[in-house]
């Protein structure tokens, strides 16, 4: 009988182990990774595209996601900034659950750059406007908000006694300065990729490689904490793949955190600090590039590598 009780106690102890969910860790004030994905599931109708994925991306990591087409890698990436609404599960970015409808998603998306396979430059704007649109709009929006708050404060201060008056929020910028700063920043970024002379042309006159590099600096103009690349070179002519990969590699060397869905195995091996192999909506295997490409364990990964290498 005594033995029985002891066994039960031990068992319950095992169950009482610390709750490691992100919400619980946040509540305890513990550190969480830059991006943490928890039990992420995505279904399109009956089709399960992502099957209960839990994964994290630490600051400074360069994660490459490889796998056959239809394995869910693009969907996984698009769930990271909730461009695709997950069916269930949570996506934490800097400790905020992006799936939560109460979270202002636009605020967090500013800090996550995304680059698409099809570039998606705005066709109705020239290159400079493409890059400055978001910084200028958001800058002006914030400025207006601050000013509105100050106006309200000034009004309520009328009814407060001299000692209780609240101080106004600081306004250090102006609409003109926001526009000028955004423009200078855009020109600097364009100069960096050697396309300063293209500032006033429309995207339709540019080559695929040029468009994709501009799409990358457009995302960079927001000073993101992480860059998400969705097959950035898959729609490019072969001779233009190099210039785009070169730019991404530069960013990686500068320490930018990035998640890249790619079919360029050589690039993944060279740049990634960690490679995830996805198939059937699950992460089947992950490890350093040396482990994944040099010593694959999973049968499907071996099969996949034998086809693409």
């Amino acid at each position, binding site marked *: 009988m005594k033995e029985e009780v002891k066994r039960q106690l031990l068992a319950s102890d095992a169950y009482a182990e610390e709750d490691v969910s992100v919400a619980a860790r946040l509540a305890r004030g513990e550190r969480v990774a830059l991006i943490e994905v928890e039990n992420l599931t995505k279904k399109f109708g009956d089709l399960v595209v992502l099957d209960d994925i839990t994964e994290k991306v630490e600051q400074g990591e360069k994660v490459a996601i490889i796998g056959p087409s239809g394995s869910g890698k693009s969907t996984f990436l698009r769930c990271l900034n909730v461009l695709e609404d997950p069916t269930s599960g949570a996506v934490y970015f800097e400790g905020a659950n992006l799936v939560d409808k109460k979270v202002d998603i*636009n605020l967090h998306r500013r800090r996550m750059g995304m680059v698409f396979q099809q570039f998606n430059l705005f066709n109705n704007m020239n290159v400079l406007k493409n890059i400055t649109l978001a910084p200028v709009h958001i800058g002006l929006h914030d400025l207006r908000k601050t000013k509105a708050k100050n106006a309200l404060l000034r009004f309520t201060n009328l009814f407060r006694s001299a000692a209780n008056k609240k101080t106004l929020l600081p306004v250090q910028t102006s609409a003109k300065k926001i526009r000028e700063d955004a423009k200078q920043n855009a020109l600097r970024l364009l100069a960096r990729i050697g396309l300063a002379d293209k500032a006033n042309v429309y995207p339709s006159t540019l080559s695929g490689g040029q468009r994709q590099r501009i799409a990358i600096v457009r995302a960079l103009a927001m000073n993101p904490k992480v860059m998400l690349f969705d097959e950035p070179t898959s729609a490019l002519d072969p001779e233009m793949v190099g210039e785009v990969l070169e730019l991404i590699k530069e960013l990686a060397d500068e320490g930018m955190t990035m998640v890249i869905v790619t079919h360029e195995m050589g690039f993944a091996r060279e740049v990634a600090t960690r490679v995830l192999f996805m198939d059937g909506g699950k992460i089947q295997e992950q490890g350093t590039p040396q482990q994944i490409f040099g010593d694959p364990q999973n049968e499907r990964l071996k099969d996949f590598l034998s086809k693409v290498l």
Partner: protein
Amino acid sequence: MWDSFYEQFITYDGYKLVLQGLQNTMVIALLGLVIGIVLGTIVAVIHVAGTRSKVARVFAAVGDVYTTIFRGTPIVVQLLVFHFVIFLPLKININGVWESVIVFGLNSGAYVSEIMRGGIQSVDVGQLEAGRTLGLSFTVTMLKVVFPQAVKNVVPTLGNELIAITKDTSVAGYVGTTDLTLAFSSLASNDYKIILPYIFLALVYLVIVIIFTVIIRVVERRLRKSERRS
């Protein structure tokens, strides 16, 4: 034949009636289309945004009912219903021209909403996604990125709608609005010499439509050029 027409047109001040009719026709067609574009755009945007929330879905359903009714019944019937079933019994006393403007605006809105929906959906969804990933809201991305491109795509079709509505106004006379057709008809019915008035009526419509066609073509070319500018 000519003498009779000349007599009706000049001596008995028929031209004044015709000019009045021309003015009314243009007012009904142009204002009707403006109302139609505003209304149709709103309905189309609500429809496109319809999957985003429950409230939007309700509005989208209302928009669907609206387009179904106004596309599903002839414009003459709509004029008659508005005139005899709504305006007269409710003792709403407005000028026949404004009455026609309202009906033609509502009618055109139903068609324009479909045109606009097509235009918005013809813009690659990647454009919207790119805006959203930069942290811009749905509304801002729609206004600054998707919409300008959609408008460019629908200009030819909107031109078509302008031509169609201009010709449709010829039935405004059913509720007593003096439009171009009614003006010429009354010239013809004054002395039953009907051939010339109706031929001239047809020619006037033709000239109006040709002028519109040229204008639309110029606008189209302008819009396309702005994209190619380097």
